[in-house]
Each structure stands twice: as structure tokens, then as C-alpha cells.
């Protein structure tokens, strides 16, 4: 059974209300917010002010690994059983560029997906309250907080324009 994270969940129909709530909560020291939206939203991103995702590092490492694997595999296998074909050198670089290119793309793409999964899993969302309406016209803001802080957070969310506020946790 997933343990429910103690906190307050607010729903916002208006984007600027949600942005104001996020900024206000951050000023009050609530940094570990979870903001739900149906689509990526640059106003929410700006309010949250997260650093750029490290997925790019996975992509780069994957692409470089693929490129090295492409040249490494073709050169090693060519020299493992040296056979002269078409008068070309045993380890002919130009034709192997095609294979190295394909593996660069393949490994880059696979590492990117792994990066998205790993980095998304680093922040566990287990036990954080969610409502199905967040996949439509509603923005959700979940504020993890101790039981004694819930009532002040609830008041703040209501004041900033949240249409529906609920408290979660024991």
C-alpha cells in the first residue's frame, strides 16, 4: 500500500492564479511542489524555475557510445577474419561511417528514453494526491507539508484563486 504524502492539493482553472500561487508558495519556503498540467506550459515552467533537464547528457553519452560502437564493431569484425573485398582496405573507414552514423542515432535515441525514465523516476510521485481533471482544463498544485501547516496552506491556496482544495495524509 502506497503511503499517502501529507499535504494540500489545489485546483486552478486560471493559469495566472496558479502562477501566483506557485510563486507565493515558493516565497513561503515550499520548494518541493508538484504542479500538474494537461500540456507543457511555459508560464508554469517560469514560475517553478527548474534548471534544464539533464536528459541532454544521456543523449550525448548515448550518441558518442553508438559512434564508438559502430566504428569499433566494424573494424574489429573486419580484422577478426581479414577478407579482401572489392580491393578496399580490410578496415575501410568511409563505408563504416554509414554504420557508425546509424548506431550513433540508435544509441542516442535509446539513451534519451532511458534518461527520461531515470530522471523522471528520481523524483518519486508516489503517494502525492492527483485528480483526473488535471489531464484537462485544470492545473493542480500539490504542496507537501506537515499536518500542522495544512490549514495555512489551504487558506493561501483558496486566497490565490483555487476552486477546489483538499487536505491529504494522516
Amino acid at each position, binding site marked *: 500500500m502506497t503511503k499517502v504524502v501529507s499535504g494540500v492539493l489545489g485546483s486552478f482553472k*486560471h493559469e*495566472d492564479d496558479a502562477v501566483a500561487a506557485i510563486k507565493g508558495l515558493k516565497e513561503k519556503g515550499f520548494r518541493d511542489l508538484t*504542479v500538474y498540467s*494537461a500540456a507543457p506550459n511555459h508560464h508554469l515552467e517560469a514560475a517553478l524555475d527548474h534548471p534544464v533537464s539533464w536528459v541532454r547528457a544521456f543523449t550525448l553519452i548515448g550518441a558518442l557510445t553508438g559512434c564508438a560502437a559502430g566504428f569499433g564493431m566494424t573494424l574489429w*569484425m573486419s580484422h577478426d577474419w581479414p577478407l579482401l573485398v572489392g580491393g578496399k582496405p580490410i578496415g575501410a573507414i568511409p563505408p563504416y561511417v554509414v*554504420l557508425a552514423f546509424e548506431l550513433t542515432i540508435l544509441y542516442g*535515441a535509446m539513451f*534519451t528514453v532511458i534518461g*527520461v525514465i531515470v530522471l523522471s523516476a528520481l523524483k518519486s510521485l508516489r503517494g502525492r494526491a492527483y485528480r483526473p481533471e488535471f489531464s484537462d*482544463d485544470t492545473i493542480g498544485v500539490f504542496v507537501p507539508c506537515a499536518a500542522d501547516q495544512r490549514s495555512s496552506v489551504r487558506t493561501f491556496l483558496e486566497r490565490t484563486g483555487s476552486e477546489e482544495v483538499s487536505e491529504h495524509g494522516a
Partner: protein
Amino acid sequence: MTSVAHDHPHPKMSHADVTRDVVRTLETPSRGYYLALFSAVGMFLVGVATFVMLLKDGLGLAGYAPPVFWSVYITTFVFWVGIGHAGTLISAILFLFRSPWRTAVYRSTEAMTVFAVMTAGLFPIIHIGRQWIFYWLLPYPNQRFLWPNFKSPLIWDVFAISTYLTVSTTFLCVGLIPDIAAVRDKVTGWRRKLYGALSLGWTGADSQWRNYTRGYLYLAALATPLVLSVHSVVSWDFAMSIVPGWHGTIFAPYFVAGAIYSGIGMVLTLVIPLRKVLKIEHMITEYHFDNLAKLTLLTGSILFYAYAMEYFVAWYSSNIFEQTTFWRRAFGPQWWAGWSMIICNAFVSQLLWFKKIRTNLTALFIISIFINVGMWFERYVIIASSLSNDFLPYAWGQLNPTWADWGILIGSFGWFGMYFLLFARTFPVVAIQEIKEMIPMPRRKGGAH
């Protein structure tokens, strides 16, 4: 029903409207859908029966005879690989260019890409004859521990197609995750459990979007050179040889333009009836078809230039073998194939200069059929005409396709259609999340931004 403006992709709908209309496409399908599905399954079974006969009696059934040993199967292989190019062009390249019109059509074109490449992948396996050792094409030592010849464009092709299939499938699946979650939040019972499992715990949290949007961008950036490279590599299957009519430096761009042209032709063939069957005419509008038609016109015009350039180069080269090949393409025994290719691809596409035609869906559908036929004939002409008349006149021959060729061709359309229809019934064919991204959230101060 809420409608979208015809001259702008910006839908005047709410997020809930989008989800509701797309989820409705996953409910009980119409009779037309079942008719299409059963037809596809029937065609697929024709292909299966033909393949069983090929396994039993060998490739001789399929009109493989000297000097043409690459015949209808390789023609159809190149045809299907080409079809698979429009999807990634629309989903990845137009994503990087921030073209707003792609959002309504890219999911169906991506699915088309994956299923077209899956179909194409069957043909080299059918063509090799001894299908049970197809894995010798992979970097795996075969008899006497020999490795594949990495200097051969055929092995480049194995890598290019496998990479393309893997990356296209990944791109499709990654794009589907937020949409499956949106469907999960709307359905009930076992479907909620199924879509819940497939959505991988997606909730649209900021930590998920932050990594997802970056990852999607990099996947698009990787898929862009890939889509251009794959048909270039397919073209090198031909151009790396010295066969007349094949050995041309124009082949890579010529094949890439042709692939995109044929792919968009198939998109039009599929999406025009699909939007009616699924009742999503208000989401995929004349605006989208107008843009698809413009892309068709562009690639069709590049093809027109490439055809003209092939004939010009043959004449200007003073090479008797090149000149004979191209003379026979136009006036030889299979002149009808050569002219079908030129009329369907180079001339018919020029009708799209007229906006009235670009926005007339009946006309577009008819043109798309011409494109499909023309692009199949293009590959047939390239393969059959060049191999029939090589350097040595005493070895000349003629490709005469048999029932086994047509059986597998029909089966391939059934196999492709079956997967596409099942996909359209199971997953959102319109990208819910990207359409929502274009709909501004309401603002208390100053309305929508």
C-alpha cells in the same frame, strides 16, 4: 460539436472537448470500420497463402528468372520503406520547424510509418528465399565464423532500416504516453486498468514534463537526420553498383524526395476516409490537407526535376548503356510502366498548384491514389528496366510478374491495413496533448494569453 477554424490550426475548443472527441474514436466502431478491417485481414490471408506456397515450391513461383533477380518483392520493399518516410518528416522535422499544422495529423502518420517499415521489413526476408537464416544479415558470424561484409550497401540497409524502425517506434510510443494517460482519466473498468498500465504512471507533473519535453526534442533532433539517411542508404543499394540507370549521384536526394512524396500520398489515402469514419472532421480540417498538399507539390516537383535530370544526364553522358536504358524506359516493351511513373508522379502533382484542388478532399483522395500507383511503378521501373537490359545484349530478358508476386503485394497491403486499423481503434489517432498545448489556458487578468 465545437469546430475549428479552417484557416488556422488553433482550435477553438477546450481541453475537455479535445479529450472527449478523441476518446469517442476509441468507442464502438462503425460498420465501415469492421468492413475495412475484415477486408484487410482477407488480403493478409491471401499473402499468407502465397508465402506458404513460396516456402513449399521456392522463389521460382514469383517470376525470378535471369537476368532479373530483384523483382516485385524488392520493388515493394522500397515502396513500403518510402511510405514510412512521411511520418517522421511530419512528426520530427516539422516539430523542429514548429509547424503548427502537424499536430492534428502527425500521430496517424507516425503510426503509418511504423507499420509501413514493419511491412517493408518482411520483403528482404521473403526475397532471400531461405527465410530461416535471415539473421545472417545481422552482425553475427555465419558459416566458418565469417562476419557480414560491412562494405556492402545491403548491410548498411539492414542497419538503417532496423534503426529507423526502432527509433520510429520509440518516438511513437513516447508521444503516446501523455495521451494514454488522458484516456485513462476518462474511461472506466478494465479499459482504465489497461490504459493505466500503458501510461506508465504519467500524471502530467512538472517533473515529468521537464524531462519529457527535452527528451522529445532530442528524439526529434535524432530522427531528423535519420529520416534523410534511411532512404539515401536504400538508394545506395542501387547507386553503389555500376548497373546502367542506377549508378547516379542524384539517387540519394531523388529517393528521399520520392519517399516523402509517396508517404504523404499514403497519408492522404488513409486520413481522408479515417477522419470521416472516426468523426473527427472538425479536428483534421481543410487547413491540414492544404498544407499536406503543398508538401506533396514540393516533393512532387523535386521528383519532376529528378526525372528530367536522369534523362538529361543519360543523354549528356554519351554513355550508350545509360542512353539505351533510358530510351527503353520510355519506348521499350514496358513503356507503360515508365509513363505511368512520369504521369502519376511528375504531372499529376502539378495540379496541386491550384488551391481549389488542394482543398477539395475528393480530388486530393484521387490524386493520392495516383501517387501510390505512380510511386510503386517508379520502383518497378528502376529495378525491372535496369536489370532487364544490362551491358550484354545476349543476356537481356524481361521481368514478367506472376500471381505469386501479386499475392504477396496484396498481402502486404492487408498486413499494413490491419495494423493501422487496429491502432486507430486502440490508441488516440490525434495527438491530444499537442492540441491541448495550442489551446491557451484561461487567465483571470487579460483573458487567454
